[in-house]
């Protein structure tokens, strides 16, 4: 073996020669092909998207030939999609394009992703400790209603967040009792929590507010106004809600807690092998209880954002969460039970919702169809097309102390 090939055998070049790299490059180029046609690049010609898309598809074919079939097909599809979107964008007017893709799209993406970030981090805490939490949806709804109730009665949004979080924590405690102590099936129990929350919030909404909008002047979540940073950044992150920033911080904190602290190690061991954790003296029940209650508190804060944030603007409507809790669950699965991945998925789903709102400019119909995207993507993700999703080993299994 000559020195020349020996030099090639270091880990980095081995990774470069792996078929995966061409696959990822192809996917990237496919996305890039669509990006070429929209602001800020906005090439007003169909040549460039098509050229780049074809390169992406060729890379895909090459990847398939080298054995990474799944990834190759992914790159192929990305290239095809990129060409399609690029050509479509080129045919629409510049005015519409500029209206659909601007700095507020970024702001809207972050805004729509906020409840998902809270929900996904909540799900990570619960499921990493070994308790499946289908009830995220209901807990979020509890936060949305009791948050606005607290803000109304307490006079300030701080009380709203606290009351909402307490309501979420309370229903999570009930769920934890059923899931952990009574060893009820966790999916059945979570479904029960979801139904119960619809009933409770609906009942008290009628009872306390007579089905009318909550009185005007409820203290809303404040925006964080940053100093001048130039046009694009101002529009994008200059006026995000305080909970959006809290959501960013939560992602980092979740990552640090779960992966870098002894507590996180205990949580993960309860989710992977509770018997072993018990053997070394970890109180599995205590860990699971605290994780589920924490999960309820977190997702309920995401719910407070729904009603008290810029989208709800101080109104509650029946069944307000409307599947957001499930999307958060999907984001968690899509992100493979990891904070960074779940954050990325939450942003992706937020972006697709923001885009769906903008597509109304072109056609309301397309916008509605676009709302399916997070669910389709999650279906694709659990099907294992984009790598395999692996749940914690003891996720959903009740633990019996011996």
């Amino acid at each position: 073996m000559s020195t020349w090939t020996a030099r090639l055998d270091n880990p980095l070049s081995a990774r470069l020669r792996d078929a995966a790299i061409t696959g990822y490059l192809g996917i990237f180029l496919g996305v890039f092909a669509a990006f070429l046609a929209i602001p800020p690049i906005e090439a007003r010609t169909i040549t460039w998207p098509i050229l780049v898309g074809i390169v992406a598809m060729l890379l895909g074919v090459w990847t398939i030939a080298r054995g990474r079939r799944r990834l190759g097909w992914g790159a192929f599809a990305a290239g095809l999609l990129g060409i399609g979107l690029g050509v479509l964008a080129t045919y629409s007017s510049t005015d519409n394009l500029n209206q659909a893709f601007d700095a507020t799209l970024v702001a809207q993406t972050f805004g729509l992703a906020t409840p998902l970030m809270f929900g996904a981090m909540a799900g990570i805490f619960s499921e990493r400790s070994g308790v499946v939490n289908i009830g995220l949806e209901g807990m979020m709804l509890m936060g949305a209603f009791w948050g606005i109730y607290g803000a109304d009665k307490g006079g300030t949004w701080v009380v709203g967040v606290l009351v909402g979080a307490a309501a979420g924590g309370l229903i999570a405690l009930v769920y934890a009792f059923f899931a952990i102590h009574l060893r009820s099936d966790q999916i059945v129990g979570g479904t029960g929590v979801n139904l119960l929350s619809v009933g409770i919030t609906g009942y008290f909404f009628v009872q306390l507010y007579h089905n009318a909008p909550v009185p005007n002047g409820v203290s809303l979540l404040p925006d964080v106004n940053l100093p001048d940073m130039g046009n694009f950044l101002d529009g994008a992150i200059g006026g995000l809600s305080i909970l959006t920033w809290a959501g960013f911080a939560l992602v980092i904190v979740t990552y640090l807690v779960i992966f870098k602290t002894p507590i996180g190690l205990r949580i993960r061991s309860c989710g992977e092998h509770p018997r072993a954790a018990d053997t070394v003296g970890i109180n599995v029940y205590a860990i699971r209880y605290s994780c589920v209650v924490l999960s309820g508190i977190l997702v309920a804060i995401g719910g407070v954002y729904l009603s008290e944030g810029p989208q709800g603007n101080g109104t509650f409507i029946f069944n307000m969460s409307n599947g957001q809790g499930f999307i958060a669950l999907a984001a968690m699965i899509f992100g493979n039970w990891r904070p960074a991945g779940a954050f990325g998925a939450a942003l992706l789903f937020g972006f697709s919702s923001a885009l769906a709102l903008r597509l109304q400019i072109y056609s309301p119909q397309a916008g509605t169809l676009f709302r399916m995207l997070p669910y389709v993507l999650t279906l694709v993700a659990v099907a294992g097309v984009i790598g395999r999703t692996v749940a914690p080993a003891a996720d959903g299994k009740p633990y019996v102390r011996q």
Partner: protein
Amino acid sequence: MTDSAPAPPPQEPAEASTLAGRLALKQRAGGIAVPIATVLLAFFMGGVVVAATQHSVHKGLIAYRDIFSGAGLNWIFHPTTNLLDISAYNLSQTLLQTSTLVLTGLAVAFAFRCGMFNIGGQGQYFMGLFVANWIGVSLVGVNSLGHILLALLLGTLAGAVWAGIAGVLKATVGAHEVISTIMLNWIAFWFGSWLFGDGGPLQNTTQPTVPISGQVVPGARLPDFWGVQGFQGVHIGVFIALAALVVFWALLNRTTLGYEVKAVGFNPDAAAYGGINVRKNLIRAMAISGAFAGLAGAIDMLGGTTNYQFGTLDIPFSQVGFLGIAVALLGRNTALGTLLGALLFGGLLFGTTHGLNSGAVIQPELAGNLTYIIEGLVVLFVGADVLILYVWNSPRRLLRRRSKPAASTAELPA
């Protein structure tokens, strides 16, 4: 999930490996007492909510009397076939609700018997409803019987395909059916909003600004056998639901298919060891399960439960698929149990919305939410038989404790 793997040695005899196995175990332990206790407990807590929020125990009790008569159950005290009689009318509506819930309940129950939790009954119901609407509106000038049969068949098929997607994903790549059916629910949700929305393919042609479908042509409507056609009489869908119960029972207990499905439900590894194709049965069970829900949607569309049309705004308020979960769990995933569970929830659903609409006891808008509370409590409690058994056994345990005060270690039954 591996077809050829030999069955692993049983680790803990008390803990069955699958959900269906565990449920069967609890069923032997609790018998019929558990569902009854569950319902009583849920009703009691619903009553407590009413009594507490209205500051009157009396109102809590009256609420249930009104729900009872609202569901038309007071009909048995003075039976009549005259639908102008209010109790007879209420009972007829309860029957209609019940037949839908029987089918959505069977959908959940069938998947449960194969060890899967089909939480996507709502989406499968929607798909059946959409397809039945499409066939029922767009085909004109065909034989009435053929039209009805075609719409029912294709609606059923749509539900089967929708659930089948989750079955195939589970069988081929091991995707958990709960996740995939939840996702399919929401895909169906937005698909429907698109179908009936402004400019959607199934939106009515007469009012282009209203996001609602066209009406099913008269020839494709299910004939009523009790009451006046067009005045929401009782249609033959009730018999279809009853027939579905028989089919469900016969499929599970009298066919090889049912035997295989149940075997996979109890223990997939043992079933594979015994030569049963697990993957095939997972897909098959999911498809059959979805067929029941799709049929429910088709019957609701052709039977006029939604006035022969459906709109974007109706979609978020349709909950029958989720109610099916409560029905099946309460009914222990058996045919007879599903019928009883459906009767209970059918009565509750119609009884609360129409029995309490006078506003004398609680505000009418509260009533519907009371149904959700009771429904949620039932689902929560029914999954936790241990709680019911705990309450059930507590008098005996108290006695024991009194006789032996030192031995206070008796906790939850293992």
